[in-house]
């Protein structure tokens, strides 16, 4: 059965399931980053999501925004590296855009992803096509804007599919940012590790919302 909105506690539990999924995916993320970067993305995400679990477990939040901001702060202050700054910025800015909303529906999904990706681009200087996590986030945000009136379970399913397609598309791109940029054309054929993380996060959010 499709769900119109998630409650604050459901958003918290959704992010706890995202944290578990990312921690479980550490080997996949490590391998993805070793191909193009220095191989620290998996361990960094595992560390950040372990902190997210501590920050969210058994806690009550006054708004949906505070849940996402808690996720961002936990990641930013424990991960370090480019990933910590960027994922932290994504969740904090995306969350902040939700104001005092106490439910997470199609409108909030769109606002969360759009504000989140805008802040990531401002912080890191990446644009779509640079073979970064933006290549999974930007199509996800675009899709979210088209499905604002859908039930949240459907909206997140569409967003997850767009993020997955974006991650796949990043395989054909040439890295121009971060440590992978020195690879140039050798970076073709592999997805960006940050985009892999985004695809896993979006898919797990969607899985949770399907109930």
């Amino acid at each position, binding site marked *: 059965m499709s769900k119109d909105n998630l409650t604050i506690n459901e958003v918290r539990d959704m992010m706890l399931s995202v944290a578990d999924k990312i921690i479980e995916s550490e080997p996949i993320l490590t391998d993805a980053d070793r191909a193009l970067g220095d191989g620290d993305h998996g361990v960094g995400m595992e560390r950040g999501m372990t902190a997210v679990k501590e920050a969210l477990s058994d806690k009550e939040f006054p708004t949906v925004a505070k849940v996402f901001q808690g996720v961002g702060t936990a990641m930013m202050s424990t991960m370090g590296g480019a990933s910590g*700054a960027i994922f932290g910025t994504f969740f904090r800015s995306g969350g902040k855009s939700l104001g005092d909303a106490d439910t997470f529906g199609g409108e909030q999904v769109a606002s969360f992803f759009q504000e989140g990706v805008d802040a990531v681009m401002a912080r890191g200087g990446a644009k779509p096509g640079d073979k970064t996590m933006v290549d999974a986030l930007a199509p996800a945000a675009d899709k979210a804007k088209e499905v604002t009136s859908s039930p949240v379970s459907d909206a997140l399913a569409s967003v997850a599919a767009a993020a997955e397609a974006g991650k796949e598309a990043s395989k054909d791109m040439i890295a121009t940012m971060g440590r992978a940029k020195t690879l140039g054309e050798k970076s073709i054929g592999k997805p960006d590790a940050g985009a892999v993380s985004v695809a896993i996060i979006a898919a797990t959010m969607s899985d949770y919302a399907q109930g």
Partner: protein
Amino acid sequence: MTKMKKLINDPLKVADELVQGLVDAYNGECKFVGSRSIVKTDIPDGKVALLVGGGSGHEPIYHGLVGRNLADGAACGDIFAAPPPNIVFEATEEVDKGKGVLYLYGNYAGDVMNFDIGAELSDDEDIEVETVLICDDVCSAPPTEKGKRRGVAGLVPIVKLAGAASQSAESLQELAAVAKKASLQTRSVGVSMTPGSIPATGKPTFEIDEDKIGLGMGIHGEPGVAEIPMASADELVPKMLDLLVEDFEKDEDVAALGAGDEVVLFVNSLGATTMMELLIGLKIAKAYLEERGVTIYDTIVGPLVTCQEMSGISFSVTRLDDELKPLWDMPCQSVCYSKMEGRYGG
């Protein structure tokens, strides 16, 4: 590749534990601050402060460069990861003595973002911050795009010079100007032979064929300009130094490196390359530079900028002028690098 044997405890606590050990090594000269910074205990009021930092795992840099006439503090990241903004801020607050703080660190996307957010947090507390990025790796971008280069071993002589300048700098801007000059006059070139490993996973940081080496590869194993066949020291070292000399020549912002120049030559091991190999490299580099009329004013040799058990060697050249030479001559002391007044043989 088999997993490296590492004498550690919880892999996720490696950085915390090594920084605590570093503080112990400083024996009271430095203290552990906040989540994971190391700061000198006796920074005088009114001193322009110098803060370094970066990912851990490259010991004895970056945090080992905190010391007398060197850096005042270091924000320490996790293994191979930039320090988070809260750590940068905690270190900034601790080293600031009212005259502002210079951030001097290697140019990596993660470090830049986290130090920038740290600078924003510091600005909220009215602490003045300037940033000078170390971009000395000539193989990571052409001279016209120096701002995109990675910071590698050259940071040791650059931090040494900036640390000396910070003792008497009247203003943050004055210190930043010296750090910029030291940065501009410092160039490095490296090769990597075998990878280091990530302590938490035991996995190698990169893969390379048995009989190949990575020319210009970064200290985390970022790909360099070319994979070339393993060669003898006599073949390889001049090839590497050619890249350095060419870079000074092509770069319109500096004079070509040649007759009459005095330089500090730093021969660094990435970890596993032995002192024996560094000394052979040093001998060849000295002859190469002297043949071009360049005088080696002083040398540094040793594994100071490392990546675990990665094997590889880098050569850094810092050209001294009348402003930088007295700064070089100042004595300094830290866990990473210490020297007496003047120079060897001087």
